[in-house]
């Protein structure tokens, strides 16, 4: 078990190294001089030269690369050109809305999608199965911002029961926070639910065909007990794995949802940084999101080993 954990942690390092390399190359892909791009169209040559020195772009490419990797290894994600603040401090300032949003979307998803998927598998080919599958195709196809705007239109503008946009911290006003959170987390959750319900269904369906389920039935086991106690736990590993892979979906969704609902989170920070051409921040944020993805999946692999002894082999 310890060996598996160590192995999993060690294997995350080359992946992060590759992400760092891709991000490094990305900034140097721009046609012409990135310093000029960052400094803006109106900047004179001395300003461009200063930006270049600030970014270390006046040094040779290998030196730049090693500096970048070295700083990352020490946990330094870089410094913003515009605000002169370290990227990590900026992330810290904006993390709360993002975490709250992602967490509530995740909770909604697991609370609804897993039971729905399991019931769809149990009542295979019934109307409820078809309804769940149809909903999941819809959830997969409707873009997150569409869901968001339709929800705003129906519940905030026409029905006028929920606030349109904005963010209230749960620490200052719990009730206001919940009312501001319902729509964004719902629109983010719909996409995620489509994914999880589908995987739960196919995974449970496969387990329901196993011999031990037939045995449980033959012994006269209670139907719902067979589904929730025998089938679902054995179907858990693929579901948990996909929840981990779905974090990529969740991150992309968070970026869009924060833009739709005007939430001051890390996703908005990223888009603002990109539009303002604050490239050190963009680099740092991509590294940050990649680290989250790799980290979550690492934890999930380890969790799977706990849940299912077969994985440990």
């Amino acid at each position, binding site marked *: 078990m310890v060996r598996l954990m160590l192995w999993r942690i060690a294997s995350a390092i080359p992946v992060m190294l*590759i992400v760092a390399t891709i991000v490094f190359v990305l900034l140097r892909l721009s046609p012409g001089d990135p310093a000029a791009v960052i400094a803006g169209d109106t900047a004179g040559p001395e300003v461009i030269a200063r930006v270049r020195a600030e970014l270390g772009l006046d040094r040779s490419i290998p030196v730049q690369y090693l500096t970048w990797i070295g700083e990352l290894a020490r946990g330094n994600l870089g410094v913003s050109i515009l605000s002169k603040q370290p990227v990590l401090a900026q992330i810290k300032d904006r993390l709360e809305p993002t975490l709250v949003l992602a967490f509530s979307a995740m909770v909604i998803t697991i609370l609804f999608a897993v039971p729905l998927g399991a019931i769809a598998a149990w009542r295979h080919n019934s109307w409820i199965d078809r309804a769940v599958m149809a909903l999941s195709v819809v959830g997969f196809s409707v873009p997150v911002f569409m869901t968001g705007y339709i929800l705003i239109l129906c519940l905030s503008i026409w029905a006028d029961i929920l606030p349109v946009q904005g963010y209230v911290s749960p620490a200052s006003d719990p009730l206001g926070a919940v009312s501001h959170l319902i729509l964004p987390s719902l629109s983010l959750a719909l996409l995620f639910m489509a994914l999880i319900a589908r995987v739960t269904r196919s995974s449970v369906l496969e387990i329901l065909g196993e011999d031990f389920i037939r045995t449980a039935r033959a012994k006269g086991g209670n139907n719902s007990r067979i589904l929730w106690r025998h089938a679902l736990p054995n179907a858990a590993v693929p579901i948990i794995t996909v929840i981990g892979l779905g974090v990529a979906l969740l991150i992309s969704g968070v970026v869009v949802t924060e833009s739709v609902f005007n939430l001051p989170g890390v996703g908005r920070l990223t888009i603002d940084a990109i539009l303002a051409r604050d490239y050190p921040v963009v680099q740092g944020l991509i590294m940050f999101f990649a680290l989250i993805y790799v980290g979550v999946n690492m934890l999930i692999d380890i969790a799977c080993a706990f849940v299912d002894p077969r994985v440990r082999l």
Partner: protein
Amino acid sequence: MTAIEQEYVPPVRPQSFIRRLFSSRPVAISAAILIVIVLVSVFAGIVTGSQPFQIRPRMRLHAPNAMFRFGSDALGRDVFSLVLFGGRLSLLVGFFVALVSAVFGTLLGLIAGYFRIIDGVVMRIMDGIMAIPGVLFAVALVSLVGPRLGTIVAAISFSEIPRVTRLVRSVVLTVREEAYVKAAESMGIPTPLVLFRHILPSCIAPLIVQTTYIFAAAILLEAVLGFLGVGFPPDIPTWGNVLAEGRAVFQRGPWTIIAPGLFLAVTVMAVNILGDGLRDRLDPKLSRNAKVAA
């Protein structure tokens, strides 16, 4: 033992693939919807009449009516025309992304699956690409290099390539152990020929299914780029750009968001359903999980 009388058995004509595919009603409907959307996009000029993007300041944000079937936007332009013309570029992006990521992903997958020495390196790189959120990478690249068709296609394809690579690699890993591949190798057939003539055909069926899903994902991602304001220049209509323009006036003119969003969602849904149909017919073993995990 002169003539053995045999009862005549009429040959069983296998049902054509197309017929079997469209025997499922959702698949047939999706295909019909897709054909209609492609046709109205291609012939948008004929459908919408003259001066499709005329700016009419005095007719801003009209609700859908006889003149503006989907209403008018903040500049008084006809949303119906914008959406139909917008479909052209959106569909084109989807098509090219599917093509580019299928080609590169297949090449990488063949190499990774066949040459075990390179496998580890290629797959770690794919893991790295998958760890980068596709939206962020595309937004960053497009804003850096400039919003041209080639850039946008490259930016979206980049994060889709690992899906294809992993799929093709997994097929290669099983097929390369088959006797006919071993036979081809031992006959001294050059490796590229073994790869393309003997191994690649086994990848085609799952590849077609995967490419369909990528087409859908690419259309969505292009819309997200436009929506976030880094897609094609704002004066070029794409579904994403029309959506982006609608954002500011959404409360007064919801049709500016709903019309392009509906077209987008229906197209993506039709492509996804078509992909599911293809999967069920081409490769029943390939479950929906493969799409998700890849």
